[in-house]
């Protein structure tokens, strides 16, 4: 036996850990191996057939996600056979549904004519909301594949729009099953499944009911997993991702401390996604953490200090408000002693805010009457 745990991918000798799949090894070495249905943390199925690779000495191509790396294995990720197969798979996907993006060759040469035709063909009378943020479209460009108008009518169920968060459009679904895995194997909510395990035609919730009447709790894991335009966020469906800034931060709801990206355009949070591959949440979020941020730009936010006069609050400038607070607190401290004042700091604020609040109570007011809502 030669050296242990060495695999050769595209003529590069690479080491691997026992039990790793070819896809995992390739990812670790930044080899760009395309996937559609693969979802980290779930059991790979090789269902979509995009990640196929050629292994020397084997007759058939193998799905890299579902094939374990073996010693002395010689793998090619972009051989002619691989590329031909991928092209075929991509063409099939493009042709199985309403994939009307620019990769479909227009019948005329006129761009406007093409756009008009797309709109007329599209039973939702819209361009695909995932345009520009679609893994299938990316692959169609990468492998220069054009789709054809589907021969048989594709899924023509109306779009599901009856819940406040998620739009489901089965006409754009490629049945890769990634959403089912996200729901079943990551969040373990089991709200959605294929309608038929052997010959699936669509993804259904419960016994084919709207999400709002199913076990779905709107965590949105399925949206984040969907590689195409079949599952999109209702409020953000027409946002163009490339116009947004993404800022990584920590969620402000429960104590789990999920790592999130706030997507921002024009000083507005347009949507929120989970940060993949990072503890503690590894990309997962809940309904509040994904959809509950309208409060930030709410018109009800306070924008000016307020002072109560004759029983009513009126707007004031900072100087007036802060001088009033400082003089009243100083006076009360002088008249009744430091322990006549209490400070309630907050479990919602940052460590820095809390530190300053307790320093203020202890060093300035000279009281230990400082507490927060931990018990409530």
């Amino acid at each position, binding site marked *: 036996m030669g050296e242990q745990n060495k695999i050769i991918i595209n003529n590069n000798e690479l080491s691997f850990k026992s039990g790793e799949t070819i896809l995992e090894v390739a990812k670790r070495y930044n080899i760009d191996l395309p996937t559609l249905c693969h979802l980290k943390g779930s059991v790979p199925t090789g269902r979509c057939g995009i990640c196929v690779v050629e292994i020397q000495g084997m007759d058939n191509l193998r799905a890299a996600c579902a094939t374990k790396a073996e010693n002395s294995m010689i793998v090619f990720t972009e051989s002619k056979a691989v590329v031909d197969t991928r092209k075929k798979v991509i063409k099939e996907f493009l042709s199985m549904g309403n994939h009307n993006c620019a990769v479909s060759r227009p019948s005329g040469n006129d761009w406007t004519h093409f756009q008009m035709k797309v709109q007329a063909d599209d039973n939702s009378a819209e361009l695909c909301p995932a345009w520009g943020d679609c893994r299938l479209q990316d692959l169609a460009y990468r492998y220069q594949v054009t789709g054809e108008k589907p021969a048989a009518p594709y899924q023509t169920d109306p779009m599901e729009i009856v819940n406040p968060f998620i739009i489901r459009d089965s006409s754009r679904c490629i049945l890769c099953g990634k959403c089912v895995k996200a729901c079943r194997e990551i969040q373990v909510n089991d709200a959605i499944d294929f309608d038929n395990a052997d010959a699936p035609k669509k993804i259904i919730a419960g016994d084919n009911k709207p999400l709002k009447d199913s076990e779905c709790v709107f965590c949105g894991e399925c949206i984040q997993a969907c590689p195409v335009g079949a599952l999109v966020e209702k409020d953000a469906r027409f946002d163009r991702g490339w116009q947004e800034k993404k800022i990584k931060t920590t969620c402000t709801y429960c104590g789990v401390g999920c790592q999130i990206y706030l997507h921002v355009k024009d000083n507005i949070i347009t949507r929120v996604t989970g940060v993949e591959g990072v503890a503690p949440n590894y990309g997962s979020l809940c309904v509040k953490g994904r959809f509950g941020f309208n409060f930030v730009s709410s018109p009800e936010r306070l924008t000016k200090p307020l002072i109560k006069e004759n029983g009513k609050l009126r707007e004031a400038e900072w100087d007036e408000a802060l001088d009033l607070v400082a003089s009243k607190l100083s006076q009360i401290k002088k008249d009744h002693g430091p322990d006549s004042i209490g400070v309630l700091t907050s479990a919602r604020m940052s*460590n820095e805010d809390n530190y*300053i609040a307790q320093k203020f109570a202890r060093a300035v007011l000279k009281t230990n009457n400082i507490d927060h809502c931990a018990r409530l």
Partner: protein
Amino acid sequence: MTNTIGDIETADMILVTGSNTTENHPVLSSFVKRAVKFRSAKLVVVDPRKIKLVEYADKWIRQAVGTDVVWINGLMHVIIKEALFNKTFVNDRTEGFEELKKTVEKFTPEHVEKITGIAKEDIIEIARMYATAKAASILYCMGITQHICGTDNVKSLANLSMLCGHMGKPGTGVNPLRGQNNVQGACDMGGLPVVFTAYQPVSNPDAVKKMENAWGVTGISTSPGLTATEMIPKAHDGIIKSLYIIGENPLVSDPDLNHAEKCFEDLEFLVVQDLFLTETAQKADVVLPSTCFAEKDGTFSNTERRVQRVRKAVEGPGDAKIDWAITCDIASRMGYPMSYNSSEDIFEEIRIVTPSYAGITYDRIDKTGIHWPCPSIDHPGTPILHSAQFTRGKGLFHAIDFIPPAEEPDNEYPLNLTTGRVIYQYHTGTMTRKTEGLNERAPESFVEITQKDADKYNVKNGKKVRVISRRGEIEVIVQISPKAVDGTVFIPFHYAEAAANRLTNGRLDPIAKIPEYKVCAVKLAS
């Protein structure tokens, strides 16, 4: 948490009690569900309500509300009697075992059944499951703590865990799930009346000296302060004259609200600093507009003690300012200049006076947070606590007897009320109720009740009913639900217009001063 969130998936047995995990910590609940579904971990849920997590459990035990010390002592009785406890751990790492043994002696399965309503066979079965598991994790939340015996409940769980040596190793531990983003951090930072940062007691002269030196002041008080739940009643007594409330809404979240409102009337001067004109801010003499998490830089410390970055993504509205800058400005105007250029500047000061944070810097946590204690810059952080020894050296068993709830049902108020949250809303709703979609899913308050009790008290599903306690009344929609247990109703506390806390009891745990939100007596009237 003594252990990490990721660690839950490595447990062989998970005991969840007093935590409606799928609704209050949904992402964390998926770790529990995956452990059960894909790693064959055993799950036991001890909860009076048939919560969603029960569907995933091997065993669901329904205790009478407020009887937690009894069933936990019952488990320890069985474990000691059957000699299933971890003798090595008990000998080497703990003290007080004999006292514990004596106390739990009377908690026979028969005795436990009588008080808790849990079948004696179930007590024996889960005792064996927990004691014989390779690694068993305990997860708990406010269902354990929000009782007059909350401290006792927590100590009892710690006893159980030490008895079986399920501590200090992966997949074990006693793990409280923090309900708000930075409860952990607010405590770590000394936002408590008896401790400075990192739990350094205000009664310790060395700690006081250290802070006085760091802050350049003298005369820091060494007497313990009042908790939030004490300050507000003390306003009524004329002892507290003024409150400066930052980012809290006690006039929805406090117990016995009708009384709390009266207390607020007695304040001489109230300052509220918040995002919104909350129920509490409306009572203020001065309201100061602050920025929210998305508008500031800083850090939060999560339930597993992981210190993580918060980054500014958008500008705040109008003249709103970051909380610390407002507080500093007040301090300066009171003759103690406080000024910092950035949140990071403050964090650098925190590191100096906070041993458990000393090794953490913004640079180090840029990509991934670090678990405290992290005493030095080259320390990797501490994902699992108590692995070699406890903070005090040996783990001390606390022999604990049972105290019944402060208010139990009687002829006039025949039902138990327990309060909590729903998945689509958060705390007093000041944030979540600004998102229409969440309101569409959970628009209004309700009282969850069994079919049997609904029939008994003649109330109809979907119809309004008045719920009345000795302290107040509210009107809510009846929701007949299989989650409920006969004799106990549940009401979420998010909704100010039908605030469950008009009903709750202000009686406190004598040590932690936590109110007994989880049990009080009510009646229904149409």
